[in-house]
């Protein structure tokens, strides 16, 4: 049985992974909008 602290760290890493994915996608979103404006779409 893992200690509560280890569960906390697993949750913290999961949040970190999620925030990484989220901000990476947000970067793509911004870049895409920029390209769409350049192309007149």
């Amino acid at each position: 049985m893992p200690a509560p602290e280890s569960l906390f760290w697993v949750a913290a890493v999961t949040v970190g992974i999620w925030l990484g994915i989220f901000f990476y996608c947000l970067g793509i979103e911004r870049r895409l909008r920029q390209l769409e404006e350049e192309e007149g779409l």
Partner: protein
Amino acid sequence: MTKTKKLLLAALCVWFCLVIWGAFFYAPRAAGFKGESARIVFFHVPQAWVAVVAFCVNLVASLQYLRRRDLKDDVRAAASARLGLLFSVLATISGSLFAKVMWGSFWNWDPREVSIAILLLIYAAYFALRQAVADPERRGTLAAAYAILAFVTMPFLVFVVPRIYWSLHPDTIINVQGKIQMDSRMFQVLMGSVLGFTGLFWWLYSLETRLARLRLHRDQRGE
């Protein structure tokens, strides 16, 4: 980006943080599971769910392409199949981690494991087919016809086969008793996660289709 979209994305970000918190600290430890292994279910099941949604979107877009012959529909079909494949791979990985903890091996030839492996091969072949045809209209037609055939196998592989044969997998939600056999807090977190993953799918799907349309636009201009 519109204000509504900004708000929705901010809500998605917070929502997922809440789901993660719920999965680790709000949901109780599941009875009959080794250690904390059941907590992976809050991510594994929604990933499998999103893969099914993506393959449904792929079917609809493929049918629309065959009806309208608009390359934008083909772009939507390819984008959804790509995401379906991605989430199937994620579900397989998360499932094999659970299998290692619960049953001692990453792969146990369980009907569900075999079903998802076959489904992965079927949709991988969809992309092999797309790569093999250079002409966009011919590619769109062949891929759409194949996508319809591929979709026919999906409900059978995901929902029927695992219920015909004996499986290691727990049937806590869809089972022969027709009852949800899950703690209410666990069920709340699971449904929250399903909602969050569905939101993430629609965002990724929108990014994929916009990127593909941009490429299509550039190709049509002859760049």
